[in-house]
């Protein structure tokens, strides 16, 4: 008995000691208030882009507390965010995008940004599709930062010239061009055999072959009947055709290694979002000369978007102003311009000057405006803009299983429908 009591006392001593040290920090307050920002933009160009926001905030007298969690494409950062939010101590802002904003809204931890939005006229500056993603139950809870276009095809014109092929605008033309490139002894498509990359090509084909309405029904609404329709079978058949033109080294290849195959002239084209442009720029290649950024076959009138955004949490009153200033500065033209040039994306704000941007970005900006009017602006499934992570996971599993086996297109469509039905 005595032993138990003494060990209990020791336990208590230890616990109170741990508690006392835990209280130590958290007292360093800044004059104008501070924002703690959780993000995973840690690589060269991205880090430079984030530094701009820090400078703008500091110029207004606020303190920026950087909380970068690198690695895992944001998975690590999400794990940290969850534990912070559970402990009741979330950062002021965190990089969360797409439907996951709604999940955080359900938790009741987000702050209302309607006053900033109203003062800055976000309703008119942002396309409605984009604004809707940022809202929870009609109130702004998140701030959009940039827009990436997914449906790009990055081509090496030298390879096409050597093979006597032309850059394809439809999937039939693609097959003809790919045949010629293969016959010339080169790799037609630089393929990164990772599930998210396979899903990226898949959604590009869904948009091209099925059209915008089909895309929305299949990948945004995750409608089970649409997922097993004849059109979806056709999509998988097209995907199977594309897969004939990849090299055996593709499985598990990183996207940037695939891009460098196009840069080096080993491969003819790659389907990838506009972050691939950064690789061309870093290799000192000029658009329209050394490489051609074309919209993927049959999607020239469509825009599959991936938007990064910050969600804003409820914070202590003294830091509220800093948080609101951050929200305001992100959408303002100055940050939009500098950030997006560094990141390789385009501004989320409509009506900005195209002058400082490069050729692919200008085309994307034009199409962004046009598609936001025509309704052909659609969220990306592969990049977690369209459906919840669990549904996305089910879709990606089926697509990657199809790409890495000899499953028939009919079976793939049926499996896609049943996998989505299981988690829905």
């Amino acid at each position, binding site marked *: 008995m005595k032993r138990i009591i003494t060990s209990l006392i020791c336990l208590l001593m230890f616990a109170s000691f741990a508690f006392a040290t835990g209280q130590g920090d958290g007292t360093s307050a800044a004059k104008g208030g501070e924002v703690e920002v959780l993000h995973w933009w840690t690589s060269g160009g991205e880090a430079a882009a984030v530094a701009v926001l820090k400078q703008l905030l500091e110029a207004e007298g606020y303190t920026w507390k950087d909380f970068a969690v690198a690695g895992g494409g944001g998975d690590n950062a999400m794990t940290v965010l969850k534990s912070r939010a559970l402990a009741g101590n979330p950062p002021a802002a965190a990089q969360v995008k797409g439907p996951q904003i709604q999940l955080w809204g359900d938790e009741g931890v987000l702050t209302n940004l309607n006053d900033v939005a109203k003062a800055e006229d976000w309703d008119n500056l942002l396309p409605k599709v984009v604004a809707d993603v940022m809202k929870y139950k009609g109130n702004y809870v998140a701030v959009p930062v940039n827009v990436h276009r997914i449906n790009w095809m990055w081509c090496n014109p030298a390879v096409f010239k050597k093979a006597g092929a032309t850059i394809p605008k439809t999937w039939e033309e693609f097959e003809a061009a790919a045949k010629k490139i293969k016959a010339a002894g080169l790799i037609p498509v630089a393929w990164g055999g990772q599930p998210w990359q396979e899903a990226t090509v898949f959604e590009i084909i869904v948009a091209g072959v099925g059209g915008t309405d089909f895309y929305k029904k299949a990948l945004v609404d995750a409608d089970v009947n649409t997922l097993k329709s004849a059109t979806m079978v056709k999509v998988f058949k097209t995907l199977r055709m594309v897969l004939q033109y990849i090299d055996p*080294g593709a499985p598990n290849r990183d996207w940037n290694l695939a891009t460098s195959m196009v840069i080096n002239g080993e491969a003819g084209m790659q389907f990838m979002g506009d972050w691939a442009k950064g690789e061309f720029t870093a290799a000192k290649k000029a658009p329209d000369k050394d490489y051609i950024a074309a919209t993927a076959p049959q999607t020239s009138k469509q825009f599959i978007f991936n938007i990064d955004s910050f969600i804003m949490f409820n914070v202590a009153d003294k830091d509220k102003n800093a948080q609101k200033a951050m929200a305001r500065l992100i959408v303002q033209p100055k940050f939009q311009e500098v950030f997006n040039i560094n990141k390789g994306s385009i501004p989320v704000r409509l009506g900005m000057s195209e002058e400082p941007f490069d050729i692919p970005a200008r085309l994307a900006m034009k199409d962004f405006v046009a598609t936001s009017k025509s309704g052909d602006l659609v969220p990306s499934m592969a990049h977690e803009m369209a459906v919840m*992570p669990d549904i996305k996971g089910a879709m990606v599993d089926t697509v*990657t299983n199809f790409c890495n086996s000899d499953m028939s297109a009919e079976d793939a469509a049926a499996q896609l429908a049943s996998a989505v039905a299981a988690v829905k």
Partner: protein
Amino acid sequence: MGKETSKANDKKLRNIKFRNRLGNLIPKIMIAPTFTVSLVCVYGFILWTIWISFTSSKILPKYDFVGFEQYNILFTQEPRWWVASLNLFIFSGLFIAICIALGLTLAIFIDQRLRGEGVFRTIYLYPMALSFIVTGTAWRWIMNPSLGLERLVQQLGFSDFTFRLLVESNVAIYAVVIAAVWQSTGFMFALFIAGLRGIDNSIIKAAQIDGASLKKIYLRIIIPSLRPVFLSAVIILLHLSIKCFDLVMALTSGGPGYSTDMPATFMYAFAFNRGRLAFGAASAVIMFITVMAIIIPYLYTELKGTRNAR
């Protein structure tokens, strides 16, 4: 005078008593933090995970109760789980068998007191100094058709040579086995050579005098007396293969497709990438039960067998 000495004695006595008590207390004070940490962080969270697996938690924990629903989905509606389970079965079977066979063979050869034994020992043991991440990355390059072995042999003139283990989804799991065997054989070798050196030489000499052949001595005397080493080897390799996460991540990331998924990578993908916390927890509990099913008999034999086996 007498009064003062008794007072001094009293003080001395109290001092000794205090010191004794302190001496008794110090080990407890030292153990308390680690005890608390393992109590909460290991056993506490095991219970918490089991609890979560019976809820409908998605991105954040939610404390409702849905019974065995997550387990039901896991076993009836998730083809990927069966791929992962089958992979674990193939991987652990081959990994353990090949590692032990190779390790034992190497140990028997080196045990022949050959010259330069130290050099060989270092060579075989060295892979163990690498982490599974390094092993995985190196083998990923070696087995990549456009970078590694296939390309090398083709450049040597054998243009028909293909080595597609890593990129064909139906055989990629064997690529993982190769890398894991390369990493762990040296360790098995070290275990077996220690076991071999521990065998009493007089028994072998007696057998030789009786006219037993070398083959017979090994099969009838030496290998049977390595029984406890076999047991430790199996347990170590088995828990390595159930926990196998880093090797798969570095070598294949579960690909091509999800053909080299293991229960550990499966759990990580679902609990953390897809916001299906309860579902991931359910798969973790199944893994936990599997490990327990192996560890408990092991502990039982270990604790009981100390008297007769060693």
